[in-house]
């Protein structure tokens, strides 16, 4: 396939992915809005005033960035894992596999689909959060780059999950037992300086902490950790996951006999 044909194929996959998650918007776009609104109401409006300030900011303003990023993470991830596994399960993935489409185009197509859903949900949640807090923006560049990179990273993660999944249970194991705990412990609700030294050290082993802090820096201008370290860690994860996915796709793991 020449470059132009590959571009057509890529766009086809992206449109297909976009169509999929907008068709079932009640399952994809609506739930994160409801969940995060509840967080805003409970932690921001009801409990927040009693907590007082966190790192010099109102509690609601402190938690909003993390909640936005959390919805980006879960939505990018679950979009790719559900869609890819679904295609594998229904065997409609074979449509792509028997075509001349190169593996990296398939991968990029799914990733872009996941990023699109992550960012759309992120935007909706951001708009909703304006009802509860008055967000200021410290650095647009940091916000946009971190949100895109994070969405890419978790779309790639969802893809890996989709490649290895053999049943629908395998699709929900990683989000439930790894992703959600890491996100909650990734400093959405607190600054890690509140933790005892030992748990501060443990927290630093959690990659999501770096993303949430960098994203929060984009809004508030504060971070528990160095911004550049965040970019470095996200970058490394993206490269590694990209290589892993491409490797297993070309070996035909779980998709070719």
């Amino acid at each position: 396939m020449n470059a132009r044909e590959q571009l057509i194929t890529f766009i086809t996959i992206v449109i297909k992915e976009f169509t999929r998650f907008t068709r079932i918007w009640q399952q994809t776009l609506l739930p994160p809005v409801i969940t995060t609104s509840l967080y805003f109401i409970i932690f921001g409006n009801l409990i927040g005033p009693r907590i007082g300030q966190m790192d010099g900011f109102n509690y609601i303003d402190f938690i909003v960035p993390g909640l936005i990023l959390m919805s980006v993470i879960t939505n990018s991830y679950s979009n790719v894992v559900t869609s890819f596994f679904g295609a594998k399960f229904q065997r409609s993935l074979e449509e792509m596999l028997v075509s001349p489409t190169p593996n990296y185009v398939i991968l990029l197509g799914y990733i872009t689909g996941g990023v699109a859903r992550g960012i759309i949900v992120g935007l909706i949640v951001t708009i909703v959060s304006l009802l509860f807090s008055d967000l200021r923006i410290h650095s647009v560049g940091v916000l946009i780059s971190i949100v895109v990179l994070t969405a890419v990273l978790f779309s790639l993660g969802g893809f890996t999950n989709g490649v290895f999944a053999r049943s629908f249970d395998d699709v929900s194991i990683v989000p439930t037992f790894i992703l959600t705990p890491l996100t909650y412990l990734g400093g959405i609700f607190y600054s890690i300086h509140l933790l005892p030294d030992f748990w501060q050290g443990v927290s630093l082993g959690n990659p999501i902490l770096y993303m949430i802090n960098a994203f929060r820096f984009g809004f508030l201008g504060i971070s528990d950790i160095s911004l550049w370290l965040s970019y470095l860690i996200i970058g490394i994860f993206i490269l590694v996951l990209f290589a892993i996915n491409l490797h297993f796709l070309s070996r035909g793991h779980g998709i070719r006999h």
Partner: protein
Amino acid sequence: MTPALEILSLYKTYQNGVTALHGIDLQVAEGDFFALLGPNGAGKSTVIGIISSLVNKTSGTVRIFGVDIKNDFPRAKSFIGVVPQEFNFNVFETPWQILLNQAGYYGIPRGLARQRAEKYLSQMGLWDKRDSQARDLSGGMKRRLMIARSLVHQPRLLILDEPTAGVDIEIRRSMWDFLRKINREGTTIILTTHYLEEAESLCRNIAILDEGHLIENTSMRLLLRKVHMETFVLDLEQPLAQLPPGLSIKAQLLDEYTLEVEIIKDQNLNDLYQQLAREDIRVRSMRNKANRLEQLFVHLVGQNNNSERAA
């Protein structure tokens, strides 16, 4: 001329240890209408899986219009359209979306893709259904949807894995007409089937696969002739040094006491005996020689008759 498909000593052993193909050699000329016949589990779908990249071969060579899949699989794949045995489209998508996506996977621009989608959906009688979800189509419509899908990039080689399974007689006939038409227009077609009748009415050449072995690869005409011949083995009372030249039936001496004769099925045996008597050959006993091909045919034909009755 480069063959449309060339397969050399193709082996496949699945991960569970089942060897589905024990060294297949096959050639399909460009423009041919080719049948791959065989009972359940013969390895037909495995061959197609390997050609279309869904199954990795264990060893052997596959060339599609001269392109070795080992060297440039994407290019080889761009020549073929596949209609798989089992439904493999997204049931939540509509025929229209499915065809447009398919075109996209082959790098066809949207405008052209729309024209083709309209053309092939209409030809397959699915234009009215273009916006229904695929899961709401009937079984026969789903099969026609897969045919329309396989044509959108206008493949030079069309491979159909039991395209008429579960399709009623009337639709089956119209599918046959359609396949004949695109074959006349230049598309090479390979079709697998359990139905001898289907192969007979459509195909010029035929290969028969059984338990992973190619047991026959010939023209439809020769095969039918072969099938209509019956072989008998005769034990003779007296030794015979050589075949008498006067015999007008096809015969062969296996040893001096054993004569093998081939006659057309349903032919009267009296003629055979008269000839033998004229040559003073006396027969002690006679048995019917069953060969694998015949057994298979009895099996396939039986299956065919049953399904025809059911349909």
